């Protein structure tokens, strides 16, 4: 499983990076660009298999250390990754039996 976490500055917080990027885009001619907010993206590989447990853990981690609730908001999703393991359902592929005319 993989946690994909997006951390963004709260709306009330001054975002000079965002403003600078907005100005840069305007100078480059992208004239229908409004406010820009620069945040953070984290990918965390999770070795467990309990999705609900992973969600709770990541929520806790986001709140405790990965984000600062005073100045940041966060959202995340837990993505199942394709990986062969005994806990994953095995997909059986049946091929039609072919009889060749001899």
């Amino acid at each position, binding site marked *: 499983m993989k946690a994909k976490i997006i951390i963004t*500055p709260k709306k*009330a*917080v*001054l975002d*000079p*990076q965002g403003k*600078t990027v907005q100005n840069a885009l305007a100078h480059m001619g992208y004239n229908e660009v409004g406010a820009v907010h620069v945040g953070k993206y984290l990918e965390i590989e999770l070795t467990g298999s309990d999705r609900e447990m992973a969600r709770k853990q990541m929520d806790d981690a986001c709140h405790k*250390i*990965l984000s*600062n609730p*005073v*100045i940041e908001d966060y959202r995340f999703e837990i993505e199942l990754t394709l990986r062969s393991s005994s806990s994953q359902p095995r997909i059986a592929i049946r091929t039609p039996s072919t009889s060749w005319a001899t």
Partner: protein
Amino acid sequence: MGHSARLVWHKESSLGDVDAVIIPGGFSYGDYLRTGAIARFSPVMQAVQQFAARGGLVLGICNGFQILCEAGMLPGALIRNRSLQFRCEHIFLKTATTDSPFTNQIPSDKLLRIPIAHGEGCYFADDETLSRLEANNQILWRYVDAAGNVTDDANPNGSLRNIAGICNEKRNVAGLMPHPERACEEILGSTDGKLIFDSLCQTLMEAERQSAPVAA
């Protein structure tokens, strides 16, 4: 200053028998994730929090201030300077209140000329917190110009209300972005910073005289 000090490594789990703790500046953990975000979980920080809970005096300077905010020992947070520049220069501080263990020896009309050196020194807190800080007299120092006026030009990093340093409600934990320890000797260009340490020492010596332990 005639007192003894010892260095405590961040991995130590005990402070030993100290009267005050100073968390210095630096770039702990490379400022990765957020400044002070990882250092605030260092083993020694549990001891620091317990020390503060018992009334012990704690002063955070620069990265130390950032760590105290991340640890929730002081309200608010420090974010990137609004100029996006690392500012390394002398600034002036006006002491907002002499009613604290960190400011009681500073003459109320004296401006402190102290250097700053930071890229993330912009103090932020929501309106409710800012109002509470003002109401409780928790703002210790503000950035001012040479004439003592709180102006936008005198603000080197965009800190809300020109806040340079604050203390907690119990007034035993404080933090500031400027470096008073770099303004303690004539050869460094200013000795104004020494007044902050004088205040700390005065508070502790008075507490000793009254035999009222500051830290249990």
